[in-house]
């Protein structure tokens, strides 16, 4: 079991009368890459700002190891932040930006020089010491911001949607880069994003938020394969969410058909459940007695795969299917999926 570095207990924050973070609890382990994921306004940035010390919790505690840090001002916390807009100091060159925290700590010039050179190597910008901030591209500014935040050897690096200002290609590159940097510097990264794909790619652990409440936390694979409710299922990737009933374990009924599944019946009074089937888990085959049958109503080429919408014959439910095979519009098809492609959630 890894040691816990950051913990929130009953953390609550309101702005005016508006509750933004509602009594949440979480723990973050050392050297973990943890992502707060959620739509805008879900409170994820506020949580990060409270950890950094820019916002004071209305109630509840934030622990760094076993010490409550609520009342410690940001400049005394051994945590550093990479800001969304980078916030690089425009009147300093790359070197001075990275050296800033070390100069504040009055470190020796020799040590500062060595550290800056080392960090520039980590972020792949060796030789950029004397460059003006304004002369750097977005991606380069991003790297300088990361180097600057790492200069003080923070216990935790906080990243507030750091890639959102970059274009898609650059963003993908920086994702890989970030993961590499994290492995290299061996530090805890707390990351905030609304981009589910980014979260899945980068994180060891994802905490999904909505309306200031934690919906689910777990590894990317857990969150993707076992979403706890419709919000998570919908937010993380594309999903087909169908109402169903379940009267016993390992068997579910939806759209008028019975299917075997691998989940037990949720321990609830009602038989109603919701069924999640990922679009890539459905194969298109022939209309059969036991399959859900329908008509192809649209097919869109997405690069790697086709996105096909199949409308069910009886219920008019639209299934989304990702497949590499082409199927003509108006073709009658059957949908094929196995027991382990069916995921059962409590009815929302």
């Amino acid at each position: 079991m890894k040691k816990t570095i950051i913990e929130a207990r009953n953390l609550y924050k309101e702005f005016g009368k508006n509750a933004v973070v509602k009594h949440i609890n979480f723990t973050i382990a050392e050297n973990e890459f943890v992502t707060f994921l959620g739509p805008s306004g879900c409170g994820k940035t506020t949580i990060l700002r409270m950890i950094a010390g820019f916002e004071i919790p209305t109630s509840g505690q934030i622990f760094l190891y076993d010490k409550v840090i609520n009342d410690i001002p940001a400049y005394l916390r051994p945590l550093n932040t990479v800001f969304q807009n980078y916030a690089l100091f425009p009147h300093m060159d790359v070197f001075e930006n990275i050296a800033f925290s070390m100069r504040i700590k009055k470190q020796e010039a020799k040590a500062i020089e060595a550290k800056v050179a080392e960090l520039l190597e980590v972020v792949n910008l060796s030789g950029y010491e004397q460059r003006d901030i304004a002369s750097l591209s977005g991606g380069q500014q991003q790297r300088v911001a990361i180097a600057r935040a790492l200069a003080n050897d923070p216990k935790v690096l906080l990243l507030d949607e750091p890639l959102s200002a970059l274009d898609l290609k650059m963003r993908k590159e920086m994702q890989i880069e970030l993961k590499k940097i994290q492995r290299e510097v061996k530090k805890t990264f707390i990351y905030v994003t609304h981009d589910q794909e980014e979260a899945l790619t980068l994180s060891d652990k994802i905490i999904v938020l909505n309306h200031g409440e934690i919906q689910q936390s777990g590894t990317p694979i857990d969150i993707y394969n076992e979403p706890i409710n419709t919000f998570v299922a919908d937010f993380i990737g594309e999903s087909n969410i169908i109402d169903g009933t379940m009267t016993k374990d390992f068997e579910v009924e939806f759209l008028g058909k019975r299917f075997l599944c691998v989940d037990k019946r949720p321990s609830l009074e009602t038989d109603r459940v919701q069924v999640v089937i990922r679009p890539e888990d459905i194969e298109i085959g022939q209309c059969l007695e036991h399959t859900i049958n329908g008509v192809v109503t649209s097919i869109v080429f997405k690069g790697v795969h086709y996105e096909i919408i199949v409308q069910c014959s009886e219920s008019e439910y639209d299934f989304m299917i990702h497949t590499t095979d082409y199927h003509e519009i108006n073709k009658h098809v059957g949908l094929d999926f196995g027991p382990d492609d069916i995921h059962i959630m409590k009815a929302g």
Partner: protein
Amino acid sequence: MNKNMRVLGLPYVVWMLIFICLPILLLGVYSFTDNTGNFSLENFKSFFTPIYIRILLNSLYLAFISTVICFILGYPVAYMIAKIPAEKKRNTFLLLFILPMWMNFLLRTYSWMTLLGNNGLINALLQALSLPQLNLLYNSGAVLLGMVYNFLPFMIYPIYSILIKIDENYITAAGDLGANPRQAFTKITFPLSIPGVITGITMVFMPAVSTFVIPSLLGGGQNMLIGNLIEQQLMQAGNWHFGSAASLIMMTIILLAMQFMNRFDKTQQKNMEMLA
């Protein structure tokens, strides 16, 4: 497009020719000629005599001191106003500092005379308290006070408008990197506000060097400054040639001072671009 712009610019070119270039040219002509209209350096020669040099140095000295005082008073005010979170409140405070400028300049200066004079409000008050009276008017102090009072808004406004533009994130980032509030100010806020400081200094120093109303009203003519000298030469002595020479010398000094300041500004230019 470019051609159209040139046509549109024409009125301004004419305006500048008539009201800027021509007067300066005339100034040059007057200052380099004598009464008979012949070329002469006599005007400059007579300016560079101890009595006029003293006037010049005194003007520069008072303008410098009042600029420094304006900066010391103005920067904190600009900073505090810029830090007010509510925009409406901010604008109200700013207005309070700008408001006196809506009144006539002479009126404002005259009202200081009634406050500072021997029979003025302050001395009346002292008398009522049976304290000794003070000589408040007609000295360098009164002139300085008049300059600071009149030109302070010119210092506050440019500093304020640059401070308000500084991204709060820079300050947050400095704090995040371990700078306490004082360090964040000296290392981030102040360096980033230097373009505003330079504009403020220029805006205060220039009118302070050339003013003649303030020293003649509050200084009582005992404190002759270069502005008074020029006014006296042109309006009273009728010596346009010497007056022009003095003007030209003053303009040159201001120009040199501005060049000097601009050198600081150059290094800050890119910061301005980032802030904009």
